[in-house]
Structure formats: C-alpha cells, structure tokens
C-alpha cells in the first residue's frame, strides 16, 4: 500500500535530521564554558591525578569525534548516558518525567482545538461583525502574550484571589487514589482535571489563538469556493455546507499548523512547568542547564528533537490520509 511506503520513506528522511540534531547539541554542549569534572567536585581542591582518573572514568580524555561515536552507539542501544550530577541514568530520569509533560502538551492541544475550531468557524460565518472583531482581539492577545505570563495571571486570579483552583503540581490519573489520600477514582479524576486546568489554558492559549485565526481564514476561503457555490445551487442546506463541504477542505492547513507548532508547544511547556511547579521534562531541562548536566541536556534534546520529528511525520502522514490530492510519491 502506498501509504505504508510513504510512511517508511518519511521515516528514512528523518534520520539525517536526527543525526544533525545530535551533532549540533554534542558540539555545543562540549564547547560550553564550565568543566563538568570541576563542577561535580563542587570546589573541592583535588590534585590532577584525581581529575585525570575521573576524566578517564567518563571517557572525557578522548577526542570529541570518538566520544560522539561512542555516545551515538550507546544512544542506538537505548542508553542516553549517565547524569554525572544526579548519578542516575538519563533514560530513567526521562521516563519518570515524560508522563506529566505529555499530559500537559496533549491536554493543551485538546483545549486549543476544542475552542479554536468552533470559534474560528463562528468568526468566519460572522465575518466583519462584532463577534469577528472580538475574536480577532482575543487571538491577537493570545498570540502576543507569553505562556508563563498567562500562567502567572491565571494563578493570581483563580488560585490566589478566588481560591478555586490549585496553583501548583499535577495529579496523575495513572497513580492509585490511595497515594494522594483520595476516596476513590472519581475524586482522582476530579482532582486531575482541577490541577490540569490552569497549566493547560496557559500553554494552550497560544495554540488556540493561532489555530483560530487559521481556521477562520480557511473557512472564509473555503466558503467562497466554487464547490460551495455548486452545493448551494443544488439545494444543499447551508448547515451541511458549513459542516461538511466547506469544513473538510478547511481543516487541511490546521493539521500542518498543529505539527509545526509542536516545537513552540514544547518550548512553552518548559516555562509552564516551571511556573506551575510540574515535574516534567521541561523543568528537568531547566535544572540540567543550571547545573551544566551535559549528559542530561543531550538526552533531553535528543528526546525533544525526536518528538518534534515524529510530530512532523505524523502530520505529513495524516495530511496524505485526509487530502486525496497528496500523492504518496508513486504517481509522480
């Protein structure tokens, strides 16, 4: 089947991208000022012999390209190295933190889509009416306001002033209610949502604003299409035209935007996790940078890079699946 071959092709194309990501981060991490060995010793006075021994232990005495190749062969075996600072395997640290980040990013996207698509359609059908102007202003604010600022304002209003929602941490639905001292799963679900609400909105607003504008533009364009004129001329009800004929065509660019915005969403997650005190990959990343934990920085960069590349591949594939005009490369 063409789609399968297309998918395989896209995965193969992603390999050079991933190699590029690792080379650049590896070089940057090693060129950065600060000596990891001295940092690990935390200012203790030791003689050169000790330093040399530690360097040998971690292979730091070998040339850069050799170290890179060793590192990559480990990565391919699923070993992202060892955090010197924390004295734990990087993969273990990442596994522990991946859940909260995924939960945050996915819920932010869900929030963005659930609000942006209906709002965009409403703005498109009421073009240049008050509703449209309001939505334009909301979108402008959403695009131009950083997620951490929105997060702080949300905390000030809903957590501190009103006291409706918690301001920090997440409740993980995959844990047992007993761990939190909740009465049962209904309370666990309720608390999960309560804790997730503010960070989700903080991170999702930018996506919502972008998607809403794209949805509006696409719907306006689609509604002016000849196929819509034709459908009207054949007596198709306006409702069906909106929901089916115009809508389907208008969704194609939305998918692209979602895939490409994954990078901003992951970047926003770093700050959102920091503001809301969530123990996700984003916060781990900040901490790793502050402590010059190179192995951890490398590991997280590779994981985030891979996530982004996978996101783009999924976008392309779903595009090919939804838009029949995209060929799988065999008709060309």
């Amino acid at each position, binding site marked *: 089947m063409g789609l399968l071959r297309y998918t395989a092709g896209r995965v193969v194309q992603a390999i050079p991208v991933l190699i590029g990501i690792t080379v650049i981060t590896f070089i940057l991490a090693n060129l950065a000022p600060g000596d990891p060995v001295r940092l690990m010793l935390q200012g203790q006075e030791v003689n050169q012999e000790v330093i040399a021994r530690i360097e040998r232990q971690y292979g730091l005495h070998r040339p850069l390209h050799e170290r890179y190749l060793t590192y990559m062969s480990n990565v391919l075996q699923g070993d992202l190295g060892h955090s010197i600072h924390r004295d734990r395997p990087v993969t273990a640290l990442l596994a522990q933190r991946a859940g909260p980040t995924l939960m945050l990013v996915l819920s932010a996207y869900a929030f963005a889509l659930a609000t942006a698509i209906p709002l965009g359609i409403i703005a498109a059908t009421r073009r240049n009416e008050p509703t449209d102007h309001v939505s334009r202003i909301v979108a402008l604010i959403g695009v131009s306001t950083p997620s951490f600022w929105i997060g702080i304002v949300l905390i000030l209003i809903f957590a501190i002033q009103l006291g409706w929602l918690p301001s920090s941490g997440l409740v993980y639905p995959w844990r047992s209610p007993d761990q939190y001292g909740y009465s049962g799963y209904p309370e666990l679900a309720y608390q999960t949502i309560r804790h997730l609400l503010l960070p989700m909105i903080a991170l999702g607003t930018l996506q919502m604003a972008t998607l809403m504008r794209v949805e509006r533009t696409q719907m306006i364009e689609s509604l002016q*299409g*000849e*196929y819509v*004129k*034709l*459908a*009207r*001329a*054949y*007596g*198709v*009800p306006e409702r069906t035209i909106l929901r089916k*004929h115009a809508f*389907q*065509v208008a969704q*194609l660019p939305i998918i692209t935007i979602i895939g490409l915005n994954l990078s901003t969403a992951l970047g926003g997650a770093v700050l959102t996790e920091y503001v809301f005190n969530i123990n996700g990959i984003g916060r781990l990343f900040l901490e790793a940078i502050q402590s010059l934990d190179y192995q951890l920085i490398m590991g997280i960069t590779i994981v985030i890079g891979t996530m982004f590349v996978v996101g783009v591949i999924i976008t392309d594939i779903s595009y090919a699946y*939804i*838009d*029949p*005009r995209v060929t799988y490369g065999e008709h060309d």
Partner: protein
Amino acid sequence: MSSRSDPLLRVENLKTQFFTDAGTVRAVDGISFEVYEGEIVGLVGESGAGKSVASMSLLRLVDSPGQIVDGEITYKGETIFGLEEGPDGDLHEREDMLTNEEVRTRIRGNEIAVIFQDPMESLNPVFTVGSQLREFIELNRDLSSDEARREAVDMLREVGIPDPAERYEEYPHQFSGGMRQRVLIAMALACEPNLIIADEPTTALDVTVEGQIIDLVDDLQAKYGTSFIWVTHDMGVVAEICDRVNVMYLGEIVEQAPVDELFYDTKHPYTEALLNSMPRPDRTVAELDPIRGVMPEAINPPAGCRFHPRCPDAREACKRIHPENREVARADGQPHRAACIKHDVFGDEYEESVPLEERAQETAASATDGGESEGSGVESRSQSGSESGNTSKAGSQHGGDDRE
C-alpha cells in the same frame, strides 16, 4: 419551439444590484426573457455584462452585497421572485413568492440545475466524484442511497466516462478538465431538472474538448428534452448550440432573436461588433475588427444608449435616448427585438440627429447634455439619467476613452 404556450421560465424587468462602498453596481438592469420547454437559450456578452449574475439571480443565489431589487421571475407558474407595491408605496416581496427554504428544496437542483465555468474548482477536492454525485441525486430525487449510486454510475456512463464504476470511487484531481466537465453535466442531468443553466461551461476547456462537450450536450438535450440557458461570450458556440439568443451589454439585453436571425439579420450595432470581432466561416475578411474601447463599469453606466461611446453608428440622439428592447422584425412568428433607435419603430430622432464622429467633440458635448431636456419622448429617458450626477460621470467616462 412549436407551441408557444406558456414559457417554462419567464424573467421580467429583472434588476440585480451590488451595494458596494464605491456605489451601486447595476449588474443586471431590467432584463426580460423567456425560456420555453426544450430550447437552448443563449445569454451572450463580454465579461462583466452581467450574464452570470443574471443566471444566478434565477436561483436567488446572489452573493452579498448583491441583491435582486426589482422584477419578476416565474418558473412553471411559481414565483421565484416577485415584488408588489405595499400600502405605504414601498415595494414588498409578494405573498406567493417562494421562501428561501422552498427555493432551496423545490427549485435548486431538482428543477433548475447548473453547470459552472470552471470544472477544476467546481468539484470538492476532498470527496470522491461519486459521493458528490450521489449526494446531489439523493437530495433532489426520491431515491435511496443505493439507487442514487446506481443512477450516478449510469449517468457517468451516459456522459461518456469510461469505466464509470471505477471512476465513481476516484477523486476530482484524478480527472482531466474535460472529464470533470462531463461529471458536472452528469450531475446536472442526474437530478432530472427541466432547466439547466450552463454558465460558460466550455470556456476553461481546450477547443477540441469544447467541441466534444458541445456535441455531448446537444445529444443529451435532444434525448432528455431539457431546456438550457447557455451563458457564453463566444458567438461561435452560440451559433452551434442555441435556438434563441439574448445579447447582453452592461446589464441590459440589447438584442433578442432566433439564432439564425441574429446572425443573418443583425439589428443591434453591438451584436454586429461582436460578430465582426470573431472569425466566421461564411465571410472572408482581411482582418478582424475588434470592438473599440472597453465596456464601462456598471457602477456608472453612460447616459442614453449604454453602447453609444463605443458604437460606430452612434449619433447625437444616442447620448440622450435610452432605448428599451423593442420588436423590430418578426421571423417565423417569433419576435426579433433590439434596443437601438436607428430602427424605425423608435421614431425619426436618430435620422434627424448628427453623427458622433470626433471623439473630442463627443467629450465636449457630453459635458453639457445633462442640462438639456429633450422632451420629444421617443423613449423615456434613461432610468439612470434621472439620477443626479450620473451624466457628468458618463462624461468623464468619455474622457477615459480619449486617453486610450
């Protein structure tokens, strides 16, 4: 065309206008015509003459800011559009006028279907050709989903698409332009309408494909007896396919005649000019004679006869008198109408006035003619002439011509 009983469609004094920031665009300005059962009626004119707006008005599908403002459209005795004067003197929609919902369910598709100009854009790119056909058939005929599917495949075969069952499952981008136009024809016929509006259906196609499509429509029209309104700018296509022709210029019908009459006994200088600007097999000419100038915008139509700034026969009277479409001859018991005062039925005003020759004079004269009040009344003065400021704008229009 045998029995001239009641027409299938009667359009009377239809006016459709667009209310834009720059002013009111009189896209369709008082046209009247009929379509009888089983005939192909042409609607011919240059781009911007108002042909497409006129044909979309018949389905009450005029996009905002456009609006049908006056006139009457009757189809099989039903009023698609009609106004009457209320007690307060304003025009109101008539009681018997179909509601939006009635037009949608009873007229669009099942009574009057359309074929659009651009087959590349008219089909929805994300649905299969078959599903689009089936949707329209289900909507406009009392058929189940399966029956509609069978009907769709049959219709694809009927319009000459090979392997219709396989093609049914394919997407529009997998069809060539000619094939897509066949799909649109299948779509129109499959809904079993009594009238099909074909809006420049062959303009976007290669000439060879155009010929095939015209032959196809000719055959199918003979077989199904469907009436057509054929909108085009191409006199060659008109000659090939139409029974009767309406020539439109700037929102008005300027000549109306059976097709042979129109070609061999042309009564309006605009039609004449259109014919001279295209190659004809029955005449050998050294070179083609294009119509001079460009069509003015319908936002400020020239006063008097709208064609006079471009008309080789124009005389001074043409600037004052806005002629209606009158019967100037009869052929085979059918009227031949033209809106040109050089014909006798319009009186002798034309004979008595001086030809407009020098364009410079024309410009100078048009600046003053707004003040003159020629009450001799061969014809009521132009509707637009009564609006203040219109004449001077018409004058500036001449100025525009001068620069060219």
